[in-house]
């Protein structure tokens, strides 16, 4: 049977995980391996006057201790992968990010020294004995405060702590004029708070240098093995790429935080040769809180103007984006090309302007976290819309329906050109909202809400209709936007002599289920059994090249590359089949794993053709033996999934405690290969988006101290914080990739956050508390305080 696409095929990869046989980085053991522990700064900003390692070196079992001064000058710092220049054309500020600090620490957790010992316990014991003499300096953690005159400076040559400023859309004056003549303007100051990705597997690295081959191998908990190799070899260590093998083994979640090249990777690779032994470093959770690139942290003001019928006439958004102390790999792209470009939303808004200031602060780096920029844009738009509906006494669903871009399929009707650079591929927005309203039972809910007003538990409903740009994306476009790498994907389809198929993809799974979804595509398109397909990923020595997994790009870009290679295999296979069948290629049909001469029962199987390709005794003249093709796929555009999310909350008026009663999500992610896996992606995204609204938030105090950097202090969402989610889909295929898919990894996280906050504001507003905003996370205390006026 070869009908896998569209079916909830159970996951191939599950067996090893449910039997405890997953192979995560910390599970890897190499003979003679030492364990590394990194001494990190407890201060946000300080001069390091002296590092005394004498006592630590005496601890039995300590092999080596290295500080920044031990690292050769020729080794560069961690590079940034995007360059977004100033409005006036000046080059983005890109201060150095050394592997271990030299002279100055710039955030809590900045690496000061690395201890390598026979066990991790010994390394930690020794680290305790290292005496670092700090001269503590003033620090700044808030991006808006960092822009104030006289604020402590993070880097000496970045005046005003400004990394770059940036603007997109219609001229500001035009937007201001439209706002000035608007019938109503809704304005809000937003804090989109900093969150910590918290993949359940912390980052880890094992590095080994092989003297016999003069070659390094590094196993790292990454979403992006080939890019890590490129950045580390070409920009940091100056080692030829073919002398480094990067493996991303089983990876326990990433959510963006494992896209980036981190200092520990290059540090361990270099040190493994320097000390002549393999090294393992596994990040402790509290260390992860300090050093895994964080997400969000925008401070914005936005104004949305409406005419008297409720049509949006203009949007002005102004954002201070916190990038932290050093530029992480994608950091400059997040508040700009992944944020500003989404400010059109699903709406026909004729005038849009986005203004962004990207700030350095004495905090850990901020970079892409599930959704990356798009959640922040969606938060701003969707909060404004629900608030405007309350202010204008209009229905929030009606208000959206009035402003939606009319349906377009991108084939018959052209794509939709926004005011902010992007051209949407295909969209049909009304049906997702209408389906969500139907699922929620909108009219009945409003009745229940009115009835609840006389009780202590008030009810609220919140909406969010979002769009995102996924499948990131065409290399030429991202290049023009400042990316220093391409964003295509590669795939090799290697048919074995017996007709079994090995597929090498540059995409990387850390929970997404590539080994199943990709195999479904291959099995279907080739007409063979799923069991006959193997998906290989994550090893730079076996996979030609790859751009990794993020931005919901695996299927749209990586899957499409596989389709291209399959087509090549089948084209060549047809030539072999035609020869064997003594027919012409044009007379053959391929279906169910065999080529058949049209109108006859003469056929030859895929297996026989494969064998013939490798045992080419009776073979077409001039045709090369073998059946093995590679492709690189560079898409024509981003893909644009969209959806409608609705939250229903209940608030205890006496305590402010808020309970999420229901969450409805109707998403359109284009065609779906495995509905079970797509549903799972949506669920997980929802939990993270709702988590930000209700529970999570990294807190830095005024001295730059991270004050909730552990699971005792940072509120991770738990099973009993959620109801079962109610989800559904519509399908608007992507017109420009061969699978018609758009990507599902981030949708849940992008749409959900504003829906929940809107629901709380709605509950309060309907109960007579005209509160415009509750800062996230909406703790009982904050909700209660809002009700006190």
């Amino acid at each position, binding site marked *: 049977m070869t009908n896998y696409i569209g079916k909830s095929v159970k996951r191939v990869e599950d067996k090893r995980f*449910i039997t405890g046989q997953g192979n995560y980085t910390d599970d890897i053991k190499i003979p003679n391996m030492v364990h590394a522990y990194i001494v990190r700064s407890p201060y946000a900003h300080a001069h390091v006057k002296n590092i005394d390692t004498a006592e630590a070196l005496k601890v039995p079992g300590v092999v080596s201790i290295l500080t920044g001064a031990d690292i050769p000058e020729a080794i560069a710092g961690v590079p940034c992968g995007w360059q977004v220049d100033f409005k006036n054309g000046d080059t983005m500020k890109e201060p150095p990010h050394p592997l271990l600090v030299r002279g100055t620490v710039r955030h809590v957790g900045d690496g000061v020294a690395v201890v390598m010992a026979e066990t991790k316990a010994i390394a930690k014991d020794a680290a305790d004995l290292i005496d670092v003499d700090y001269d503590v300096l003033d620090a700044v953690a808030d991006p808006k405060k960092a822009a104030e005159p006289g604020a402590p400076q993070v880097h000496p040559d970045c005046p005003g702590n400004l990394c770059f400023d940036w603007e997109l859309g219609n001229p500001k004056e035009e937007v201001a004029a439209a706002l000035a003549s608007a019938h109503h303007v809704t304005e809000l100051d937003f804090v989109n708070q900093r969150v910590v990705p918290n993949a359940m597997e912390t980052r880890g690295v094992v590095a080994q240098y092989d003297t016999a081959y003069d070659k390094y191998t590094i196993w790292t908990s990454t979403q992006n093995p080939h890019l890590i190799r490129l950045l580390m070899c070409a920009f940091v260590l100056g080692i030829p790429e073919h002398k480094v093998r990067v493996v991303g083994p089983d990876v326990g979640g990433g959510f963006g935080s494992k896209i980036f090249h981190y200092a520990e990777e290059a540090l361990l690779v270099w040190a493994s040769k320097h000390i002549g032994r393999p090294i393992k470093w596994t990040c402790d959770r509290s260390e992860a809180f300090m050093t895994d690139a964080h997400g969000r942290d925008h401070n914005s003001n936005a104004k949305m103007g409406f005419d008297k019928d409720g049509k949006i006439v203009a949007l002005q958004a102004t954002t201070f984006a916190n990038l932290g102390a050093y530029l992480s790999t994608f950091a400059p792209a997040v508040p700009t090309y992944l944020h500003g470009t989404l400010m059109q939303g699903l709406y026909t808004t004729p005038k849009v302007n986005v203004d962004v200031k990207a700030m350095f602060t004495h905090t850990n780096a901020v970079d892409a976290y599930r959704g990356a920029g798009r959640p922040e844009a969606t938060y701003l738009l969707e909060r404004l819309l629900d608030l405007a509906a309350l202010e204008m006494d209009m229905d929030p669903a009606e208000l959206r329906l009035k402003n939606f871009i009319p349906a377009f399929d991108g084939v018959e009707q052209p794509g939709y050109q926004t005011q902010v650079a992007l051209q949407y591929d295909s969209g049909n927005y009304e049906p997702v909202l209408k389906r969500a309203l139907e699922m929620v039972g909108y009219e009945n809910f409003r009745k229940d809400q009115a009835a609840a007003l006389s009780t202590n538990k008030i009810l609220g409903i919140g909406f969010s209709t979002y769009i995102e740009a996924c499948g990131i994306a065409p290399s030429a476009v991202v290049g023009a936007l400042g990316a220093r790498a391409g964003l295509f994907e590669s795939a090799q389809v290697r048919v074995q002599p017996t007709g079994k198929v090995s597929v090498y993809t540059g995409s990387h799974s850390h929970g997404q289920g590539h080994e199943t979804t990709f195999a479904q595509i291959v099995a279907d398109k080739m007409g063979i059994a799923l069991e006959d397909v193997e998906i290989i990923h994550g090893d730079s020595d076996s996979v030609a090249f790859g751009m990794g997994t993020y931005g919901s790009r695996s299927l749209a870009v990586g899957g499409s590359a596989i389709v291209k290679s399959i087509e090549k295999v089948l084209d060549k296979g047809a030539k072999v089949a035609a020869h064997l069948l003594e027919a012409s290629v044009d007379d053959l049909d391929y279906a169910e794993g065999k080529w058949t001469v049209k109108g006859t029962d003469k056929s030859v199987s895929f297996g026989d053709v494969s064998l013939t390709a490798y045992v080419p005794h009776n073979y077409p003249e001039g045709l090369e033996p073998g059946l093995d093709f590679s492709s690189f796929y560079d898409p024509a555009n981003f893909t644009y999934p969209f959806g409608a999310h609705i939250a229903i909350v209940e608030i205890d008026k006496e305590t402010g405690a808020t309970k999420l009663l229901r969450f409805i999500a109707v998403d359109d992610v284009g065609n779906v290969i495995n509905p079970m896996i797509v549903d799972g992606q949506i669920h997980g995204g929802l939990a993270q988006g709702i988590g930000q609204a209700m529970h999570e938030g990294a807190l830095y105090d005024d001295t730059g101290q991270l004050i909730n950097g552990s699971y005792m202090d940072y509120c991770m969402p738990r099973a009993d914080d959620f109801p079962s989610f109610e989800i559904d889909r519509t399908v608007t295929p992507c017109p420009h990739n061969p699978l018609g898919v758009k990507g599902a990894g981030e949708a849940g996280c992008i749409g959900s956050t504003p829906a929940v906050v809107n629901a709380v504001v709605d509950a309060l507003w309907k109960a007579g508390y005209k509160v415009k905003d509750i800062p996230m996370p909406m703790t009982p205390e904050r909700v209660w305080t809002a009700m006190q006026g």
Partner: protein
Amino acid sequence: MKNKISVNVNGKQYEGEVEGRELLVNFLREHLSLTGTHIGCDTSSCGACTIHLNGHAVKSCTVLAVQADGAEVTTVEGLATNGELHPIQEGFKEEHGLQCGFCTPGMMMTAVDLLKSNANPTEHEIRDALEGNFCRCTGYHNIVKSIQYAAKKMNGATA
């Protein structure tokens, strides 16, 4: 100072020498190479390290190896019998209860303990029992369904 311990893990007796401060999870992962039990935190919060100690779910990062001397331990590697998956393992596969799989061993060990004391838990009781186990991938939705699947199957089998 090293302490001698003897622990029965997944039906096999192991002898070992451990430091007094050494955690049981470390003993399992480093001494016995049973790496199915994971470490997700340093504050006894996440549940990734959950195992059974004398038949009850405990966080093995919160038990000293010496405390397990003479005890019986079951880890995720001991859930299946003779290659046949435990109903909870089957449930996680059938209901897509895992994505990255990192929290999964701990989740399953907690769930098995729950089903021992409550063969027919409600959704609320399941969510309550998972309080001490974090999952960042699944939003817990399908984990609940996986446990319901196992409950059904186990009840069917014993009825």
